[in-house]
C-alpha cells in the first residue's frame, strides 16, 4: 500500500512525524484529503483538525490553530501555528507591545509594582519578626 511521510512541525518543536496512508486537513478553501502521490500543493490552513490515517485505518487527530500545508508527492508537511492568528489579533498584540514599551519608559511598569510588592513583603516580615520577639521577651 502506498504511504506518505507526514511531518507536523511548529515553531516550538515537532508535533508529529510518521508514515500515513491518508491525511485530512481543513485548508483555506475547504477540507482536503491528501493521498500518497498527490501533486505538489500548498495552502493556508484554517484552525481545525489535521487527521492522519495510518495503513491500519487508525486515525490520529491533531488540532492546529492555523498554519500552512505543504504537499509533495511523497511528503506532507504541516507548518502549524502555535496560536490563533488573525489580522486584528496580531494588530492588538502589536499595540500591546507598544503600550508596554511606553509604560516601561514612563516608569509605570509591572517591574516597579513587583519591586514595591517585594519591599512591602519585606516590611511585613520584619513586623512579624518584631512581634514574635516581643512575645518571647514577655514570656521570658
Amino acid at each position, binding site marked *: 500500500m502506498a504511504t506518505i511521510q507526514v511531518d507536523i*512541525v511548529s*515553531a516550538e518543536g515537532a508535533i508529529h512525524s510518521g508514515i500515513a496512508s491518508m491525511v485530512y486537513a481543513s485548508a483555506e478553501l475547504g477540507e482536503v484529503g491528501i493521498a500518497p502521490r498527490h501533486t505538489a500543493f500548498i495552502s493556508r490552513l484554517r484552525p481545525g483538525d489535521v487527521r492522519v490515517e495510518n495503513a491500519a485505518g487508525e486515525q490520529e487527530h491533531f488540532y492546529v490553530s492555523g498554519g500552512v500545508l505543504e504537499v509533495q508527492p511523497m511528503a506532507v508537511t504541516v507548518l502549524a501555528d502555535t496560536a490563533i492568528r488573525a489580522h486584528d489579533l496580531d494588530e492588538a498584540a*502589536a499595540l500591546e*507591545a507598544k503600550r508596554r514599551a511606553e509604560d516601561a519608559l514612563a516608569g509605570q511598569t509591572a517591574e516597579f509594582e513587583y519591586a514595591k510588592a517585594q519591599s512591602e513583603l519585606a516590611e511585613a516580615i520584619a513586623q512579624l519578626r518584631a512581634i514574635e520577639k516581643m512575645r518571647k521577651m514577655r514570656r521570658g
Partner: protein
Amino acid sequence: MAGAKEVRTKIASIKSTQKITKAMQMVAASKMRRAQERMAASKPYAQKMLEVISHLARATPEYRHSFMAVERERKRVGYIVVSSDRGLCGGLNSNLFRRLIAEIKEQRALGVDPAFCTIGTKALGFFKRFGGSVLAQATHLGDKPHVEELIGTVRVMLDAFEEKKIDAIYIASNEFVNTMTQKPVIRQLVPLVPGERQSMPLHWDYIYEPDAHTVLDSLLTRYIESLVYQAVVENGACEQAARMVAMKSASDNAGNLISELQLVYNKARQAAITQEISEIVSGAAAV
C-alpha cells in the same frame, strides 16, 4: 576569643552563600540542557519554511514581497535586542550591549538613526539608561518562551518597515557557541538576506490555495517570527550557560575564601589557647 567568633560567623555566612551559588549552578545546568533541546526542536520548522519560501521566490519571480525587496537607502534601522530577564549571568548582557553600542556608533557615523525593540528586562533597563527610541518591548518570557508572546513585538517592527519608517531590521542576540563561550551577534532580518540561489532542478510548481502571494505573505511573517523565536531560545540557552559558569566561579571563590578564613580562625583560636595557658602557668608560678 572575640576575633575567633567573628571569623566563625563570617565563615558561616560565606558557606551559606556558597550553598546558594552551588544550587544556582546546578539549576542552570539542567535548565541549559532543556533550553538546548528547545533550540534543536525549533530548527526543523524554520528549515522547512526557508525551503518553501525559496521555492516560492523562485517560482514566482514577478512577485516580490517588500521583505525580500532589494535594499533601499537607509535612514533609520531597527534593532530587535534579545536579552535575559534576570541577572547573575556573568557578562552576557553587557557584552551584547557593548557590541550594540559599537554598532550604533558606526551607523550614526553613516547618518543612520537607530530604533529599538527590546525583549527581556535587561535590554529595557539598558535603553532606559542609555536612551534611544524603544518602539515595543516584551518581558518575562520565562524559561519556556512562546511564539505568541513575540508576535506583537515583531509585528511593530515589521509594520514600521512596511510603512518605510525603518529601512532594515536587525536582531542582536547571543549565539551559543558552547557552554563556555557565548558570542554576541547582530544579524540582518529584513530585507531577507538571499541565500545561495540554486537553479531549479525540476520545473514543477505547487497548486496554490488561494494564491501564491497570500501564501508567501503569511509564510514570510511566520518565518521572521520563527527566527526571532529561535534567537530568544538560543539566548535563553546562553543565559543558563553563562549563569552556570558564573555561579561555578562564585562557588570556587567562596571555597577559597572559606579556606583562607579557616586559617585565620585556627590561628586566632591557637593564640587564645596559648594565652590562656600562659596565664594559668604564670598564675601558678605566682602562688
